């Protein structure tokens, strides 16, 4: 490999030009736009000291926001895990009219700006909306301005993640394993649970984690439907916004830094899951 030759020699041995220019530009641009601003967040957050940090995080309003964000995001990602896998299964294994159209429109939540998703979902699920209306008259439940509304918005923005991670794995899955299982006397149910699902687990968990991470940070699609009541329907990104509006920069920074650390841990987890999936894929 390149490591065994001296750097100056390796540099001259490169046939293609432009390594210094492109890598230099990449590193400078990455540092200016991403790394330095994110570092500023941590430097600023650490500036308030350990006591201030603990006091900010442990205040009831902040704790309530964290609890709400984590629980609703988890439930939404869990529902997405099942619905997304079903959608991927249907898209890969079944043939029906409109399949390609459905395949294309699965990405709609990715393409639609979050603010538009927010007002559209609020309009539908409000007590006089197309879905919120019948639900309200039948059950008396209110969907908007409740954690349930936040959950619906997070399901909307998260499910494409699961579909798009499970779909390619399912498409590559060698059908002969299922045939072998069937010919050896396994029932369809046994084949699904012992052959198919184990192969899908890394991809499905990756999709779940991606949906969860996105849900934790989501702002635009939630802000309209949640009603933004402190302690009740205030998610963490919204709380950061509220603190900023009141010029509480330190509080906003500390909360954002904690969220960023959570995101980085999730990113690490996603990388690990993807590596696991690749390893598994090599044996199929």
């Amino acid at each position: 490999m390149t490591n065994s030759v001296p750097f100056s020699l390796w540099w001259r041995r490169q046939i293609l030009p432009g390594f210094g220019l492109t890598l230099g530009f990449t590193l400078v641009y990455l540092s200016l736009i991403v790394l330095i601003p994110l570092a500023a967040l941590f430097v600023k957050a650490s500036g308030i000291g350990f006591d201030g940090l603990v006091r900010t995080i442990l205040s009831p309003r902040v704790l309530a926001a964290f609890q709400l964000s984590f629980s609703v995001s988890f439930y939404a990602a869990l529902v997405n895990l099942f619905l997304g896998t079903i959608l991927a299964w249907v898209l890969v294994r079944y043939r029906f009219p409109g399949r390609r159209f459905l395949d294309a429109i699965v990405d709609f939540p990715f393409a639609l700006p979050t603010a538009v998703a927010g007002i559209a979902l609020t309009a539908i699920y409000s007590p006089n909306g197309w879905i919120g209306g019948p639900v309200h008259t039948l059950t008396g439940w209110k969907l908007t301005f409740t954690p349930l509304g936040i959950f619906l918005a997070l399901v909307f923005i998260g499910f494409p993640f699961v579909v798009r991670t499970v779909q390619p794995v399912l498409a590559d899955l060698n059908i002969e394993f299922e045939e072998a299982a069937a010919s050896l006397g396994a029932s369809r149910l046994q084949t699904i649970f012992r052959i198919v699902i184990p192969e899908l687990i890394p991809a499905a968990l990756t999709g779940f984690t991606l949906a969860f991470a996105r849900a934790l940070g989501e702002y635009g699609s939630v802000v309209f439907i949640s009603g933004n009541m402190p302690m009740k329907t205030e998610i963490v990104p919204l709380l950061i916004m509220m603190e900023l509006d009141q010029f509480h920069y330190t509080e906003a920074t500390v909360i954002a830094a904690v969220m960023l650390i959570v995101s980085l841990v999730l990113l690490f987890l996603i990388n690990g899951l993807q590596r696991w999936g690749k390893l598994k894929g090599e044996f199929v």
Partner: protein
Amino acid sequence: METISPIPMRHPAIRDPWPVRAVLLITAIVFAVLFLFVPLLAVFYEAFQKGIPGYLAALGKPASQSAIQLTLLVAAIAVPANLIFGVAASWAIAKFNFPGKTVLISLIDLPFAVSPVTSGLVFVLLFGARGWFGPLLSAWNIKIIFALPGIVLATIFVTFPFVARELIPLLTSQGSDEEQAALSLGANGWQTFWRITLPKARWGILYGVILCNARAMGEFGAVSVVSGHIRGLTNTIPLHVEVLYNDYDYVGAFAVASLLTVLALITLLIKALLTWRRADLLPD
């Protein structure tokens, strides 16, 4: 063109029993209708509540016009910036081996893991009135936060990975044999890039650019933090949607939102066409 794939029909033993198929298919379709088509319809239904004249009047208002212009301007700066970065980064990463390459690839994806609100906040911490460079900027009378430069920076941050993450795997899989042949025949680096690499990667570049553009025009949370919501001056289309909605001008909000919805649909259409094109190019 819909072809009947041999896979699902191959053997009754590996076919799901028909009740299972029916339940899964109905689940998928009901979910798609509720979560994809109903929100899509709702946007246009609400936008045309006062008919076509009401719709056009809402779009024609000066504040709407200036929001549209600002969004176009921001995208016109942010998308080319990230395009140049994406091309440079993918050239360095795909054509050369160097230590730390996988770390660099992960760092490029980092902005996707950051909450939009945090993405805006970091620039407030750097350039805001009480930020690191705040005193310096105000001494020189330069405005970044609550002005165009802040909106552009936040947009560049959130759309940072789109082109690069599309091009890195593409250029890697294409290898550099053709570039080496061009160079050995006497072409210089730029000629090789413009005549060999760029034409080969054009669909990947287009794909990355349309995704980058859709997000740049639709970004809400990050831009909301840095813009200051000055009507007619620093309101982009998504921010203007929020302003109108909070003013109870629902027709106006949904009319402006419908522009972004059309953009999302066009983005999905181009994406689907490019995906099918790519699938056609591959041996099946």
